[in-house]
């Protein structure tokens, strides 16, 4: 699979790269919806990241086990079913044991299923998020999934922390405009955050 900036993402055993060089949020631009919506405090960011990572890991593990048994045509459907199942588990768990967090994350919990991060990191066949890569071209190993999950989690905590601290001085940060602002500023700071998305003939 070629990521948006054309680098070869062949599987490797270096999960650390997912934290910096290939950070899901700041470089690969995956999973932006929860990155904006579930990060009003650092704690929320952590919870969201943890839930997503949990689903990511489980889905990755389960799907790689069943991959060979599933006919190609229903590949993505099966993948989503597995992901949805884990998300439901996460949802129910949070609802029972941490209802305040459940309420804070709200609608973004079920949306984990369609989080591009899950699709890419879980190894979904022919997922549209990866620009229509050929099936099986990118099979993330469990280590990859772990790294991606960790990278995502740390990113969300970072955004949450910035917003939380910022909102003590300027309440904007806690609100929707502030979320956009924070992500925009952080992305700019992260630098070289990919591609020529500006070109009309860009990949998407």
């Amino acid at each position, binding site marked *: 699979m070629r990521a948006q900036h054309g680098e070869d993402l062949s599987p490797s055993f270096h999960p650390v790269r997912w934290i910096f060089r290939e950070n899901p949020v700041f470089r690969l631009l995956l999973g932006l*919806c*929860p990155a904006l919506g579930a990060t009003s405090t650092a704690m929320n960011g952590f919870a969201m990241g943890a839930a997503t990572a949990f689903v990511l890991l489980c889905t990755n593990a389960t799907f790689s086990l069943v991959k060979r048994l599933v006919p190609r045509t229903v590949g993505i459907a099966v993948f*989503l079913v597995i992901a949805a199942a884990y998300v*439901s588990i996460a949802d129910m768990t949070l609802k029972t044991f941490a209802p305040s967090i459940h309420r804070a994350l709200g*609608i973004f919990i079920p949306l984990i299923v369609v989080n591009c991060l899950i699709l890419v990191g879980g190894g979904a066949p022919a997922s*549209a998020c990866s620009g229509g890569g050929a099936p099986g071209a990118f099979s993330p190993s469990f280590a990859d999934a772990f790294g991606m999950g960790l990278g995502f989690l740390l990113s969300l905590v970072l955004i949450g922390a910035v917003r939380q601290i910022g909102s003590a001085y300027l309440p904007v940060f806690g609100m*929707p405009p502030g*979320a956009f602002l924070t992500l925009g500023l952080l992305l700019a700071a992260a630098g070289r955050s990919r591609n020529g998305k500006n070109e009309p003939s*860009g990949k*998407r």
Partner: protein
Amino acid sequence: MFSVFLSAIFVNNLLLRQFLGVCPGTMLCGGVRKAIASGGVIFCIMMCNSTASWLFDRYVLLPLNAEHLQILFSVLILLTTTWSVEVLAAKLLPSVYAGEHFRLSYGTHCAVLGVALLNLRKGYGFAEMLVHSSGAAIGFSLALLLLAGIMERLRFAPGSERLKGMPQALVAAAVLSAVFHFVVL
């Protein structure tokens, strides 16, 4: 009712206030025309999916007391409706299909799924659901349109490379989010 509609467009705007559908929303290449067409496509998909989801929840899940399967089936229904709308479009409106607007719709899964789930969680009746979904879709398309216009202009702006594209789109979205915050009637 009108208030649900209006708030779905502005104060609770999917993209700018609820952060759903941000992925394609801020990575707009292809400009204003594509944004308009994509908006239309997304409207269709959203309406179909919301209706299907709502009906399924009301007449299958609720009687069977299977609310915990809601997420699972919402996703499956999403897949089905997207696929069906796409197939229908390929047959009936080949020019639209060829325009690759459906690619964009893949990224809006958050938004489409989000609307369907919001309908269910807020306990809307059938007509309320329709109004809410159409308002949400219109609001989303409006946000897409505004951002597309702005980004088209900014394409040629001077300034460091690291600011262009996403960061600028996000800050523009921040301002729009603030504006929509106040559109309360």
